[in-house]
């Protein structure tokens, strides 16, 4: 097996990885997770909060990233992920994620909120849960 893709993960404030070799990817899109394998069709798709998994072949390690909203573009052998916020699983600050989950849940349980606020905090809860889950993943691997 060999690497079919090179992956860029870009955010407005930093370049997470550039030209990362990958054999396949799991991408969280709005309409569900997609699996990008060899010879995938050219696609542009919207992303949602979730885990991006990049699987390398034999020598290259698998890598995992958190993703919030953004887009993914697959073109020939190049995959570009543009997202607002992203971090790799071993960078996640578990304590902070737990704290923000608590905060967001407390806000959600209080009443008198506009729909927008509910949405905002719901997204916060989603993000925190994702981070906690992925931080756990990173630890169990060590």
């Amino acid at each position, binding site marked *: 097996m060999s690497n079919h893709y090179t992956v860029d993960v*870009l955010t407005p*404030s930093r*370049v997470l990885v550039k030209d990362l070799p990958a054999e396949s990817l799991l991408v969280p899109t709005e*309409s569900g997770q997609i699996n990008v394998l060899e010879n995938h069709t050219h*696609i*542009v798709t*919207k992303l949602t909060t979730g885990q991006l998994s990049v699987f390398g072949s034999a020598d290259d390690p698998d890598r995992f990233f958190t993703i919030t*909203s953004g*887009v993914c573009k697959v073109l020939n052998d190049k995959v570009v992920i543009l997202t607002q916020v992203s971090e790799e699983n071993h960078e996640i600050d578990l304590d902070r994620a737990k704290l923000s989950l608590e905060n967001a849940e407390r806000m959600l349980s209080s009443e008198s909120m506009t729909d927008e606020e509910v949405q905002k905090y719901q997204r916060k809860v989603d993000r925190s849960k994702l981070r906690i889950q992925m931080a756990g993943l990173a630890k169990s691997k060590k």
Partner: protein
Amino acid sequence: MANIKDLKKKIKSTKGTLKITSAMKLVSAAKLAKAQLAITSSRPYANELESSIKTISALVQNYSHPYLEETDNKRCVVLVVSSNKGLCAGFNSQLVKEVRNWVGKTDLDPKLYFIGKKVMDVIADEVNVGKKYEFEKADPSFQEITEVGNELAEMFKTGEIGKVFVAYNIFNSAISFTPTIKQLLPMSLDEETKTAVKDEFPFDFKYEPAPADILNELIPQAFVTTLYTSVLDSAAAEHGSRMSAMDSASSNCKEAVRSLSIKMNKLRQAAITTELIEVVSGAESLNG
């Protein structure tokens, strides 16, 4: 002719200046490193976003977004990004020149908005000044720039203005920058680029969800991101320019101290020689 006392004073004050300029150089070098990191990590995202929008909007038929529409409204806004502090060589003056040229040549009716006061101070009397943005810290955050962007975009959408430009210095390297004026809105493509894109992509992408949905989300993002990268560019260029300005100021100071010291030593030597001659000739006359 200057006397020794004056020269001593001069040397002392030049040494003081030297201390200040070399300290400023160090500070700028540290700030430059930070600003350079920020711009180099933000550029790939901005470029990729821009090229994606270009490709998709050229390939997709019958799509339009308010940000893409050309209007014949002559009024426009130029957001001029400069610095709040001076002592950075041509950083501000070159931008002033560029803006002045542009305003002189254009057939539009521009109103100038400002980030940073230096360019405004020079050019305020010559042009139509809109307003000046102030930020909490020296470097505006992404959030603050988003607000600025929203305000300009709102004016564009309501038809109050027909175009939005940004004038800033592009950061090339620590010693080089290019003043430039770039059109942000509308992000229209001319037919040439459209055909070029179509030649490059004989196939279309598969979109999920519909391409219009994707573009609706990307286009406002791209506007703000481009605005933000131009502010980052400008910050990096400012620190780079100040660093090299302070570097040359420091070496000029050193040179001045050296030549002043030589002059002073010559004067001192001359004074000693004159005194010696007086003593010797006095003694001679007694002997005589």
